[in-house]
């Protein structure tokens, strides 16, 4: 069974506004590292946010880990969200907090209000955080403030935070587009390595087609809210790319 399956997904931000997603269907299998490519404004960010309902879909069916996402009440939704690790384009760290506290904040879905008030996380969370910080190569920066780090380092904090959730699916929203090409490649390689090790499937928005081809086993092409391509990376032809990015020529 697929980890995630999306059927006829439609989104409008306002009742009379334009339709951002116009009936999208796709599945993510348990061993997928799936790239979502497409020009800016195609709806990639909106789509990825529908999966954990940071954006509310207007119509369609989303089944994640066997649960009907759109039917969940707010408590169950929070329970689902903590199974979904998310990594963001601009890292979305809490700048005034330390690297450690940022990483630990990935556990908030499992932490009571009283504990979170005093930032009193259980020992096993702290040891897990140290482990992940080591894996992403930030052992020397644990007690620094998040805004003291470089872009690549901040994204590594974002990765460690997402891993803290012990996710069953990773959502990556343009994880490398705020980074330079060399760091981008390193960060993508790191995410892919860890995802493989932990056996977690990933859905990755990315506009760098080269990176997508290099790292992902499957590609979905999105254009103006419509799916234009869905297949193995090896089957992606130049003509498909031209089709997906046709509108950007203007």
């Amino acid at each position: 069974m697929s980890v995630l399956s999306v059927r006829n997904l439609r989104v409008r931000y306002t009742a009379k506004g334009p339709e951002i997603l116009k009936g999208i269907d796709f599945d993510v299998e348990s061993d997928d590292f799936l790239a979502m490519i497409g020009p800016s404004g195609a709806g990639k960010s909106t789509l990825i946010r529908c999966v954990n309902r940071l954006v509310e879909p207007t119509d369609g069916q989303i089944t994640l880990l066997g649960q009907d996402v759109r039917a969940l009440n707010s408590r169950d939704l929070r329970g689902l969200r903590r199974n979904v690790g998310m990594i963001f384009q601009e890292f979305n760290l809490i700048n005034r907090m330390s690297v450690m506290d940022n990483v630990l904040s990935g556990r908030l879905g499992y932490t009571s209000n009283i504990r979170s008030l005093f930032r009193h996380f259980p020992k096993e969370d702290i040891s897990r955080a140290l482990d992940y910080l080591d894996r992403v190569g930030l052992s020397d920066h644990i007690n620094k403030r998040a805004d003291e780090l470089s872009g690549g380092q901040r994204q590594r904090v974002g990765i460690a935070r997402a891993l803290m959730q012990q996710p069953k699916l990773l959502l990556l929203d343009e994880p490398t587009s705020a980074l330079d090409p060399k760091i981008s490649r390193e960060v993508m390689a790191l995410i892919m390595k860890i995802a493989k090790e932990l056996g977690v499937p990933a859905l990755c928005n990315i506009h760098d087609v080269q990176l997508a081809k290099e790292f992902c086993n499957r590609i979905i092409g999105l254009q103006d809210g419509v799916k234009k391509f869905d297949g193995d990376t090896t089957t992606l032809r130049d003509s498909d790319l031209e089709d997906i990015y046709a509108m950007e020529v203007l």
Partner: protein
Amino acid sequence: MSVTDINTSDGLSLQTELRRKKQMKQLLIWGLFLLFAGWCVHGTIIADTDWSRIGGRNGVLASVGRYITIDWGLLPELIIPTIETFMMASVGTVLGCFFSLPVAWLGAANVTPSKAILYPLGRFLMVLSRSVHEIVWALIFVSAVGLGALPGILAIAMRSVGFISKITAEAIENIDAKPVEAIRATGGNEFQVMYYGILPQIYPVVLATVIFEWDINIRRSAVMGLVGAGGLGLLFFRQMNSFNYGGVTMVILAILLLIVLGEVISHYLRKAVI
């Protein structure tokens, strides 16, 4: 258009005419302003002062001169009210902060639980707190809970809410939404979103505002005693009533000292925060 066009006599007379109009307008505005100022002075000072009671220049100087003595004997009596004034300001500010939190929460457009009812309520409370003078708040609380420092503390707390909650609400409205989204994505609840996503972003601003408000509250608590709400003001009032002008000066000196002290402390606190 060429240079010769501008320099023709037509252009010149047009310019002169334009400038004269401007000057006339300016003259008119100044004239109206002076007329208005004169009317105000006449109404409030000339017609409203009891000139016979002032009794000449020497009388005024003599009255003011009475204050140029210092009653050092009052010193031991000053210590407790000075401390009380300081504490009234401090406790009032802290209490005001607690009141401000819910008001700011209601009155910040991006986090308010209900935009239709609670948001306007929050905004109204902010205006209410500021539009009522601290002395009026004190009068209300003196009649509610009696004389002493407590009504002063309550008055200062109420008066502080307006400014602190308004600045806090504005800080909340200006936060970066990205960390908030991240905390929400980890499965955090509303409390955790506020505590981790919002609070770290606003607290430098809020803390600086609270320190500033505390500084002002020292001044406010110094006059609370005038209406029976404790502190140095009460002593001031008593000296005034017993015509002990040296004592009045002594109290004023104590207030001055306290305010300078508050100024110095808040200067260093602000530095530590920012």
